[in-house]
């Protein structure tokens, strides 16, 4: 049973880590987009 548990644990851990990594990167880039849009808005006003 321990082998079965180990195999499934590895699969779930890998999939969740990948999804977590994608979500983290997505959040960071979305923040960057917002920052750039704000800067662009200020530049347009000038």
């Amino acid at each position, binding site marked *: 049973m321990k082998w079965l548990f180990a195999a499934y644990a590895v699969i779930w851990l890998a999939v969740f880590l990948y999804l977590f990594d994608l979500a983290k990167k*997505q959040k960071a880039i979305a923040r960057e987009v917002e920052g*750039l849009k704000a800067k662009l808005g200020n530049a347009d006003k000038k």
Partner: protein
Amino acid sequence: MIERKDTIGTVLTAITAVAMIVSLYMVFLFAPREATMGDVQRIFYFHVPSAWLAFFAFFLVFVFSFLYLLRGGRRWDTLAAASAEIGVLFCTLVLVTGPIWAKPVWGVWWTWDARLTLTLVLWLIYVAYLMLRHYMADPERRATFAAVLGIIGFIDVPLVYFSIRWWRTQHPQPVMAGGDDSGLEPAMLATLLVCIGTFTLLYLTLLRYRLKLQALRDEVDTLQDRLEQAG
């Protein structure tokens, strides 16, 4: 924060989650216990679909790379890169869950037989593909070199698949379409097919998330260009 409504993505994620629950039910409660190996054989139901997903992802890298070289356009390159990343993830899982299954059944973690060695080579090819993408700065050259590697690298996929038919290997013979001696008990076959379907949905879900990330990166590039022009 940017909030974009992604109905297709949400529905796809929900369907994948439900399919995963059904798959787990079938793996642990529906499929019968294998007579020789016992419960450890249940690794098979996620090990084989992981291999299927990796092969499918690498096949699409091949198709997208070919289309990039044929027609050009960033879209094909982006799709190939996203598919390769997911393929490498699941090829890694094949290489990890295989030895976890092999140890209690064969008594060793690893053996250098044709199937295992060629799978490791496949993994190395696509890790090299991702490294090439990571370290090459010029987008045009990166896309072209990656497309060539994505096409050539795919040659190893049929070699991995047919290795157990062409050579004598420690790895078990095919359970589907493998001749008179092959075959699975109907409940086991149904479980395997449901798991393969679920992993295909998982591939589509992950690809969608990965492409969404790329779309945001492209937006950053566009905004930076506009800002440079404005400044």
